[in-house]
């Protein structure tokens, strides 16, 4: 689950990391008030940033500066309601604009190959790390935290020196270790600060001082761990989600809506993707990805079927179950149950093999009309594509 910038910053600030103060506004007037507060406290300008979970908001015009309350109101008005890659901006973050001396990239990510938390940094911040990784991999510093002991002091120092932050050693060490800690304490997959900036400020005695500050933050939470972090689940931005995604999650289903006409219900992500691949290959187009998971009971199957049928563009349904931990009879019972409650008559091709497939065949046979069965995957896919094609023709 991705967190909005203002939620990510909350996690960082809670862990004691230096995040400049911020406010969140959902109306231009609110943004004006907040901007005026920051300006009154001495900020030269404020920055107003669209809060959306898709990338590229800067290029899309979702990040702007303002020098007065009136300008802030105008800018926020332009950003709120803006459509960024299909997402409508509902909130903006307002913060004092920092005088940036230097930008650094720093992130903690889960490294699947090493099976450790990887701290990745680059002395050149504000960049797309993927681009940098491809073009100049040597410009990225990589240090793996200890799986039990975390990011050791010496590792954090090594990272700091490599990023040219030797003059800010203590602060850089605290930030690097803080990112690792935020990751562990919140079961995050990713904790990214880009840019981490050396910011020019005026010290109490009027002399300029440079401090390290986290100016942006991106955090992604491990979905498998959300159940043990109710506070994070509460940060989920339901406004940005497709209502059907919310419903699928509530039902414990892994569902992704697509554009096509063939509703797919499969157990297992790999087989579900393969089923979609084969539908495309056979000239059809899948209406969704749906993995009902291992050990699905009949009720879950029925719920899954309702989700598929909620999409009017679905002209055929392809059920592909290879029983293992899932048992064919449970799935068949769910299908029959869903069928009995179904208001819309969409043809269904069912293929159930593996554990308890024989029982499933009996249940489906007893249920009678409307359910066509297939033995092989290829056969099932062809049948479904043919039905969808004739329905669309």
């Amino acid at each position: 689950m991705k967190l909005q910038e203002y939620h990510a910053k909350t996690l960082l600030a809670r862990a004691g990391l230096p995040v400049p103060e911020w406010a969140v506004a959902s109306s231009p007037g609110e943004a004006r008030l907040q901007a005026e507060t920051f300006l009154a406290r001495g900020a030269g300008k404020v920055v107003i940033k669209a809060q959306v979970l898709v990338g590229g908001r800067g290029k899309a015009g979702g990040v702007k500066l303002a020098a007065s309350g009136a300008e802030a109101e105008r800018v926020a008005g332009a950003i709120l309601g803006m459509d960024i890659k299909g997402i409508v901006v509902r909130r903006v973050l307002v913060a004092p604009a920092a005088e940036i001396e230097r930008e650094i990239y720093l992130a903690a990510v889960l490294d699947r190959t090493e099976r450790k938390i990887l701290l990745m940094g680059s002395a050149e911040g504000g960049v797309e790390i993927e681009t940098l990784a491809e073009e100049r991999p040597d410009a990225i510093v990589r240090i793996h935290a200890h799986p039990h002991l975390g990011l050791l002091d010496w590792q954090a120092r090594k990272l700091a020196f490599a990023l040219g932050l030797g003059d800010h050693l203590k602060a850089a060490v605290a930030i690097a270790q803080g990112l690792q800690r935020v990751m562990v304490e919140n079961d995050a997959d990713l904790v990214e600060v880009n840019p981490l900036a050396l910011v020019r400020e005026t010290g109490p005695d009027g002399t300029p001082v440079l401090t390290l500050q986290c100016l942006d933050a991106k955090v992604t939470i491990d979905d498998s761990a959300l159940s043990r972090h109710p506070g994070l689940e509460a940060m989920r931005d339901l406004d940005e989600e497709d209502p059907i995604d919310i419903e699928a999650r509530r039902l414990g289903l892994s569902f992704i809506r697509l554009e096509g006409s063939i509703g797919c219900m499969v157990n297992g992500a790999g087989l579900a993707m393969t089923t979609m691949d084969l539908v495309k290959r056979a000239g059809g187009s899948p209406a969704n990805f749906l993995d009902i998971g291992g050990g699905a009971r009949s009720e879950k199957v029925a719920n899954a079927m309702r989700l598929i049928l909620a999409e009017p563009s679905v002209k055929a349904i392809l059920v592909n179950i290879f029983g293992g931990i899932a048992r064919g009879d449970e799935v068949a019972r769910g299908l029959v149950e869903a069928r009995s409650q179904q208001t819309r008559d969409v043809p269904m091709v069912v293929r159930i093999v593996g554990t308890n497939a024989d029982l499933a065949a009996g249940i489906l046979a007893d249920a009678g009309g409307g359910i066509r069965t297939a033995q092989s995957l290829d056969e099932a896919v062809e049948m479904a594509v043919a039905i969808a094609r004739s329905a669309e023709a």
Partner: protein
Amino acid sequence: MSILVDRSTRLVVQGITGREGAFHAGQMQAYGTNVVAGVTPGKGGQSALDGSVPVFDTCADAVRETGANTSVIYVPPAGAPDAILEAVGAGIRTVFCITEHIPALEMMKVVAEVDRLGARLVGPNCPGATSPGKAKVGIIPGSIHLPGRVGLVSRSGTLTYEVVQAMTDAGIGQSTCVGIGGDPIAGSSFIDILSLFRDDPETEAIVLMGEIGGDAEERAAAWKQEHLPKTPMVAFIAGRTAPPGRRMGHAGAIISGSGGTAQSKIAALEAAGIRVADSPTQIPALLREAGVRPS
């Protein structure tokens, strides 16, 4: 021979008194696997599978009383990481964890400890392994197998069954079929299993079932080219038509940026001399073309 599981497997089922544990323990025993013990804390002294399998409070008791050398875990996610550590702590050297939805950072700590103890973990969120005609551990349906000389390793569960069924239907038997699971942090990688197949004289060809996300398939391709240059190998990649940036069911199946796409994986595999099938059902034909004969 075969890898990971065979007739010498003495299996303890952790979570044997639960719904999944009980069902699959029965399936494994029916297949011929030597299920010697079950573990459920607090139910020590009871028995399972119609009295044929004693249940213990701890893995240590199970190992001491029954000589168990392999464990399979059907314990809910909150208890599964500890169950893995209990198994390796009791001296069990091969552990299969079927449980899904274990937080990745929990697994990070667990795999570090499993490695330190020199044990082998397959999974979590994996279907287990079958050495046809010898033993099956996990949830792969036993009926789909045929004994033979092709090793299979897969990140997927049910997709694996699909391919195994196709191979069996075509008369191509398997030495061992292993599902390593699709979770971000896994006990065994493609390369770990390929190394075992390399050392198994009975395995003459290998099938690798990959999927989008990460770079495990690319790494496996490079490893195969270096360490198994002469072994025939075919592969399949699921998710060619998956939209980028969305998580497909389990954490493994996500494409981010330019890496991890089906295209990059297929290119890497083919560059290593591995034929890549367009459909799982093509696999038997590609194996035959690579010189594999029906069992």
